[in-house]
């Protein structure tokens, strides 16, 4: 995600590298939900996902000084830190779990390979980050439509809004998302 306002992700990482806590909080508010979504989708456990999310942002605080804008966009840097930290957390959890189990053979996985999985993860990361940046009036109906399994009428009932308002907000939100995600879709 490219933020072209004054508090761009790259600006924030630069300030975090200088130990600016307010920049850290801003980046956290911008990406915490996206990182948590990545963690829970990979780890399938809320407690571990919460822990992993904390670990990601501690890692961001520690390593922000190593971010070099010329080597890529800040969101990609954050995504890489998040993915690696979540994977490490999953491995550590499995080691603890496996230590208490018999030596069962590894099941054969039909999951995508590492490169493919990373690219899928990046798309999800960008989509979630873009959705979380939507104004709430647009974000809520979009989320309810795609991840809440609700029809437009059900969303209107749930939010206590006229159906036309829900449709307009959903459409506006989708148009905004399409613009933000240009180059990724």
């Amino acid at each position, binding site marked *: 995600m490219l933020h072209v*306002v*004054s*508090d761009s992700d790259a600006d924030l990482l630069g300030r975090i590298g200088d130990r600016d*806590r*307010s920049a*850290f*909080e*801003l980046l*956290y*508010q*911008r990406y*915490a*939900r996206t990182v*948590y*979504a990545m963690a*829970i*989708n990979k780890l399938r456990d*809320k*407690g571990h996902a*919460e*822990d992993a*999310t*904390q*670990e990601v*942002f*501690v890692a961001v*605080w*520690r390593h922000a000084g190593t971010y070099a804008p010329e080597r890529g966009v800040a969101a990609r840097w954050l995504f890489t830190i998040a993915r690696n930290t979540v994977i490490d957390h999953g491995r550590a959890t499995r080691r603890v779990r496996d230590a208490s189990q018999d030596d069962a053979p590894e099941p054969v996985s039909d999951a995508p390979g590492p490169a493919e999985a990373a690219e899928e993860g990046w*798309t*999800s990361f960008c*989509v*979630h980050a873009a*959705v*979380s940046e939507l104004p*709430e*009036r647009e974000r*809520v109906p*979009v*989320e309810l*439509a*795609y*991840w*809440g*399994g609700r*029809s*437009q009428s059900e969303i209107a009932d749930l*939010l*206590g*809004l006229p159906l036309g308002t829900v*449709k307009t907000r*959903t*459409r506006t939100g*989708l*148009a905004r*998302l*399409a613009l933000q*995600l240009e180059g*990724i*879709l």
Partner: protein
Amino acid sequence: MTGKIPDIDELIGAETDPQERERLTRLHRTLAGTEPFPELPSSLKRPPVVDGVRRLPLAGRAPGLPRAWRGQRQRRAAFAAAAASVALAGAGGAYLATAPGGTGGDSWRVAMHATPAAPDAAATLLVGSRDHAGNWAVTLSVRDLPRLPAGSYYEMLLTRRGRLVGSCGTFRVDTGTTVVHLNVPYKLNESSGWLIRREVSPGRFGPLLLRT
């Protein structure tokens, strides 16, 4: 994913320009194939304490220690408990005292305005002193928000230049006017804004009710 993919025609209408339709259809497919986007749990509403690169105790790693951020949750509950009946100081006038940014005895008042979702409500914020650690004492006086059923809360959020900065705590209200004492650990300045919304169910929020 819920397994129920929304109907693209219902979302964007049938009379969309073909080029726009193609663009939105690509987005639609991507969204439909994207993993669910869970709400952030309350334990993660605030960033970890990183000053001095110190980590908070994490779940399951320090037996006997509270789960991460439980203290903040308890503080939020304390904010709600601290609500007392005091007459609303008047919903007009934005900055009645000094400009924001001062410390010590400086304070200023901010009026919040009702949205169509709560047309009768009104609120003012009295932003008080900031302690040496960077915590601002903020007193919210709010009137005519509906009382909520057990387990539901209102939440006050801070924004800066229109972007969400973080939650300033949750609270409940009584009939008439309720005063809530909040602690705000974020930087406050002229670009700060405030929002109040309702948690309609755990992790799900209704429309904005009051805003500056």
